[in-house]
């Protein structure tokens, strides 16, 4: 796997060590007043962005933490040094 990922604790490591946790979409909506559609959209729908997206990764073969990085889905390269948005 050519992807490398920068873990905030362990530094830049080989992509094999990580597990993908999906795109960043913020915390789950509150249950009060939640409709089927909203829930279905939260659980199943994805933006699937072509470009730079913030996304979650888990350092499975390392420190075991969840963190976000920014990755350009067009080049499959991590975009480093960008401010957290």
């Amino acid at each position, binding site marked *: *796997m*050519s*992807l*490398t990922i920068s873990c905030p604790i362990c530094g830049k490591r080989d992509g094999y060590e990580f*597990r993908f946790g999906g795109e960043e979409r913020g915390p789950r909506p509150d249950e009060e007043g*939640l409709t089927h559609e909203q829930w279905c959209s939260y*659980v199943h729908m994805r933006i699937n962005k072509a470009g730079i997206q913030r996304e979650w990764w888990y350092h499975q073969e390392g420190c075991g933490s*969840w963190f976000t990085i920014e990755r350009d889905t067009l*080049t499959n*390269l991590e975009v480093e040094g960008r401010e957290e948005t």
Partner: protein
Amino acid sequence: MTDRLRNLPTMKVHPQTELTLIYAGKRLKGLASDTIATALYANGVRIFSRSLKYHRPRGLYSLDGECSNCLMDVDGIPNVRAETSLLQDNMKVEPQNVVGTPERDFMSFIDKLDRFLPAGFYYHYFHRPYRLWPFFQNRLRKAAGLGRLKPSFRMKGIFDEIYPRAEVCVIGAGPAGMQAALAAATQGLRVILLEARPWPGGFFDYRSTNDVSDIPLHQRARQLADKIEENRNIRFFPGTFMTGFYSNNLITAFQVGKETDYFDERYMEIRVESVIVATGCMERPAIFDHNDRPGIMQVACAHRLARTYGLLPGKRAIFSIGDDLGLEAAMDLFDLGLPILCVADTRSDGQAPGLVEGLEERGIPFMRGWTVSTAHGSRTLKKVTLCTLDGLENRDFKCDLLVASAGLTPSAGPLFLAQARMSYDRFTGFFLPDEMPQKVHAAGRLLGLQDPLSIEASGRLAGLSAAADCGALVKVLIKEARELLEQLPGPVRGSKFIQAPGSGRKRFVCFDEDVTVKNIYQACDLGFDHVELVKRFSTAGLGPGQGGIPGHNLPLIVAQYRRYDGDSSDPILPTTIRPPLVPAYLATYAGKSRNHPKRTPLHETMKKTPGAVFRRTGSWQRVRYFTHDFQCREEIETVRNHVGMIDVSTLGKFRVFGPDALHALQRVYVGDMSKVKEGKVKYSAMCNEDGCLMDDGVVVKTGENDYYLTSSTNRADSTAEWIRYHTRYEVWNFSLVNLTDAFGAINLAGSRSRELLQTLTDEDLSNNTFPYAGYKEFRIGGDIPVRAMRLGFLGELSYELHIPASYTRTIWDMLLEEGRPFHIQPFGLEAQNVLRLEKGHVIIGQESEIRNTLHDLGLGFLWNREKSLYKTVGAPALHFTERQNGRMKLVGFRMEDPRRPPKDGSIIVDTRIRGHVCTARYSFTLGQSIGLAHVHSDLADIGTRLEILEDDMGSKRLYAEVVPTPFYDPDGKRLKI
């Protein structure tokens, strides 16, 4: 075997070491360091195979495996590249795609039918009427393909993989590559140097021309190779074929092991900061009538046959070439004893004067502006016709060897893979990089350089540039290297010659797929006139040579046909190159077989237990049976009547602690975890956001804000990830420790388990002080700490004992010893499976799938709907699906025929499929056959008759009735004694 040349300093074969090979049943001799192809050539083999479509004879053409001509069946492995595979003693080699023998092939009449087989002929002829296509498809498939794999074939050998790291990777160990590696390594950087051939040296390796300091080039190559060997920063990988080039400078390759290596092949994934591509050039095939006849070969092929392998390639030779290397080879081969009738050069001027003089001195006729137009001879070459480039003058020569090449073409595959922007350069006639990607450099011949000093200087510059990428302070050195390179001769004008005059039907652009120039024109005429479309429609370049032969000619011919002349501004476009650059075995990609199951702390004990049968379950190796009675009657009855024990160390075990530990548990468990009381266990479940069951287990409170929990075996690896994922947005203060491997666990089950356990401890274990669903920490067997839970998975009084891993064996042995008077017996997974089935308990993955909600499984009662504040994972879905109609439900059933349980996985039917059996067994305890099944909700009512269909049952059916669960001890009295 023909005599080899002697005393050549460039020879790589060892005349003293003879090896045997068996070719088509005959025993032949080769030498150590021969390739299979050169050994066969030494034995007079000229026809190596028959071509894919027309069954034309094919022979040795290049020596780098760029076409399928020399694909052979070696020791039962089809499609082995005989040109690049080293000969090993007693190899069994068979020609491929041959009906009869390579010399007399019964299918060769197809060659005469070529008018009926235009490009894409199968689209034209076999689809009208369309219903006949399957018939023709079947025929075509049988005729297509080269090697045949026997169904019984098993790949032998050791396939390894390595993931080396370095700062710089250099691809190609020719003069440029070696200089680049040395330049970078001298800056203290780790360098990986890859070379496809078994030795370094590139095109210096077989040349005897002197360089400026008056030493022969092959000796210069040796000098550089020695330096490489001495340099401890360089790891040199010979026999290594690069396959891919990916982002972040990840290079993939595979290395073919020598006989002294521990592996046959190994896959490599190399991650570096900076890459240097120095792969040099190959030859652009000359295109003329019958250009594929055995006896026709490329310049370097003939030259290397003589210089490296000591084989004079023929007895009467004609040269038809397009660059100075061809002239040099002609002179050198003449000096080695090859009679040369004449040398035709497509260039009318521009030859190095020294070379022309050299030919004259030797009395070799030199014909400027001539080229070969036709090869004659029915099987191998007998005669060639040379002509002027305008086709007006012709001359015939009788010969058995034609050394032919249209010019050079760079081996730029790695640059294409690296996404360098490549375009056609009109001066060199090469596809050259306009712009290199970051931290990728090119050096040497593939930039059009031909002068030995320039090549070395460009290598040094690339090596220093790569060092700069890695942070070395080499600005001044780079400036000097660049200035030096600028003073040396630059790129050489390349031959633009495309194909001989005339328009014969048998001019092959692609040998692998038997694609002729005619086929290319046909494709263009049908409208497939972009080079990528031509490639796909005509299949030129889609063969095992990965476009090595047609790669450069195809774009030129397409451009020529579209009347793009050399001065036109219309671009000549290359086809796309994709990995793998070189065909590789799937076995090499598969690598080692990694069967390393995890073992419990009791593994050694289990192995010594008579009758233990192990099975792989998930990542674990566990005991399935302790007897060869696969119904496990004795094991089951021991638990029901006396006491048994099972190794359950595979359970996931976790400690969650900290001020917000309870919040975290409330988030992932569907139950209300605030109700977990000290000294009590709480059984609960985890769902995903679809409300489907992921995991079940128990939670105990071991102290203030301190919890101990178990997960099912399969979830042991992912529970920490799961809990952290679902709390990732919170700033909760809690810690999570995976104790799975720190604790062994034994489930002691049976009505006499209390009596037995009591013999090992002074702790009061009576039902009052340690009741059902209780939790207790105490010491047993002297001073061993144990965490004990009273659980009811198997339906009997039972204690799940969690013991520090290193003591687990001690406790097991003690229980076995003390349990003798109680008739204790260990039991395995199958017995446990039946025991819990009798209680109607679910095993996740066996009675549940990822689509079954908690409600579907009848476990909805575990869900506490009052804690929406905690955003429990799956809670909204549990609300939404609580009353949903039409879902599959888990039910218990009893067979009408008590002796006949259905097989697991049998389907439940009426007029269509209505569900399936999860688990069904004969219960010795109940004297009935019982099971659990998923059925549509309208079949889920108690008393419904189920029709069960097993595999291969035809119209017969088994019948069962839906009954309430648990089947055994429905009131749970036996748990609470």
